[in-house]
């Protein structure tokens, strides 16, 4: 059990962190590098809930936005240092996750759509003209926060390590195994003594918190933004498509998804982003229908003996 955790961490997480850490010396586009880490965190965060409990939240970006605004509002209305405000961003998303926990009673597409509606509702509340005094409303926010590219990039990598560490642990631990059992068959899981609701809630909240933390770091690195920017549905779509493409429930899958698809997006997509949303939307459907286990499953199938 623990051997698998060490092996996966050594084979996937460690090299990834090394590469990300040296990248700034090889490649001088800080914003793109940060975005890569942001999408790695979002994909792995989504992986927590989809890969281990089967819930696919189309409104996942809501937690990202909650984190960005948790960070922004803390800086706007208190004297808290930015690092603390990042934590507040994580807590804001965690609380949003708690509020939305009843959605976990819904299944499949109903859950996906309800989470999407919730993210939209949150955006509307924040963008509400009457709340402009507090949230900046539709005019967005312009934060007076020191520009610390190395720190924010390092923070983002730190969050990635935490999230991927959690994924690796879930893949090897008894708790993770019980989650998979509950996903396979919630009825037999319950009769086998597994608290299905509790397990789902734990990964849901962890998933929300991850998105919130990285949303806060994102806001710190780009401190002038409109509500639309941090509640952009593309974040959800990208995270979903990266995870599904590489393989949900694995540690390496979402990484593959981000590298291949976000790479492709940056090479050919940026000039035609609307096209890419369409292509990615279609890709999600195709993956869910025909290839639900993603690319990583090809490797798994070959060495499946235990």
């Amino acid at each position, binding site marked *: 059990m623990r051997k698998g955790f060490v092996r996966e961490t050594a084979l996937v997480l460690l090299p990834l962190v090394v590469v990300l850490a040296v990248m700034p010396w090889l490649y001088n586009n800080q914003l793109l590098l940060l975005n890569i880490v942001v999408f790695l965190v979002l994909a792995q965060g989504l992986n927590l809930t989809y890969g281990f409990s089967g819930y696919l939240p189309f409104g996942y970006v809501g937690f990202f936005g909650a984190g960005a605004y948790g960070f922004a509002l803390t800086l706007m209305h208190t004297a808290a240092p930015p690092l603390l405000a990042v934590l507040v961003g994580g807590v804001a998303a965690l609380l949003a996750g708690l509020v939305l926990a009843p959605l976990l009673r819904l299944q499949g597409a109903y859950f996906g759509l309800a989470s999407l509606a919730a993210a939209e509702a949150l955006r509307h509340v924040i963008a509400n003209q009457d709340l402009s005094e507090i949230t900046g409303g539709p005019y967005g926010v312009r934060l007076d926060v020191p520009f610390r590219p190395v720190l924010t990039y390092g923070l983002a990598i730190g969050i990635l390590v935490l999230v991927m560490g959690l994924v690796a642990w879930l893949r090897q631990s008894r708790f993770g195994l019980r989650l998979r059992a509950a996903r*396979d068959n919630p009825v*037999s899981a319950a009769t086998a*003594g597994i608290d299905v609701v509790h397990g789902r809630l734990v990964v849901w909240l962890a998933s929300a918190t991850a998105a919130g933390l990285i949303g806060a770091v994102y806001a710190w690195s780009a401190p002038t933004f409109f509500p639309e920017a941090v509640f952009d549905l593309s974040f959800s779509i990208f995270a979903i498509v990266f995870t599904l493409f590489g393989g949900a429930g694995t540690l390496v899958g979402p990484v593959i998804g981000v590298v291949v698809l976000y790479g492709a997006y940056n090479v050919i997509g940026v000039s035609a982003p609307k096209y890419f949303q369409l292509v990615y939307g279609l890709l999600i459907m195709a993956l869910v229908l025909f290839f639900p286990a993603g690319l990583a499953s090809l490797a798994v199938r070959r060495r499946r003996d*235990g």
Partner: protein
Amino acid sequence: MADGARADTRTTPPPPLLRVTGIVKRFGGFTALDGIDLTVRAGEIVGLIGPNGSGKTTLINVVSGLLSANAGEISLDGRSLTGLPAHRRSAAGIGRTFQIPKPFASLSVRQNLEVAARDGVDIDAVLADVELDRHAARPVSDLNSVSQKLLDLARALVTRPTLLLVDELACGLNPVELARVAERLRALAAAGIGLVVVEHLMSFIDSITDRVVVMNAGREIFGGRLRDAVQDRDVVEVFLGAPEPVAA
């Protein structure tokens, strides 16, 4: 078999392991359980028989907490279970198997038991006991239906139940396998576990139970020894065809 447990307590009989009283379960306007009572003592095997659709599985679902009853009380060892969710009832000592096995499809045979096992349970011994040890590392989808049934039983056993509800385990087993399962269930009872065994195969029921409850249309129509049940007019009528046709 279970006489030892009963003989020494002639003066004050111990409280039953399971006490079910007045259970009513409706599905919409249809009443599947219509005021069922059931008691099971530790070390006793109670056969639960009745025609298709009489409510046997529904009763097991209500006792194991998968369905909540519209009325009635359930207690285990004197402790009320009413309103407790299924996983808590498992923790309280209720284990069950399913009429159609429900394995965890993406897990290996051994992992199917690992997720359910209480601390200190020797999973490999339980696997060996149901002769699945050779398949421990295989995915469950490799197992045939009989092996999946035995895996279902094994998964219930690693939760260390004090009450085991067995829903049509014998169906599909050959005579050799039947004899082995019967022996295993008797051994569980001898170890003090109370069992409710739902079965259509009367010879199997006869070989393991002291007492049967016959259900029809959500009610108990007979309780007692199987050999007396087959003499009972109501029971014979239910099993050999009612005077008027029963609606499907």
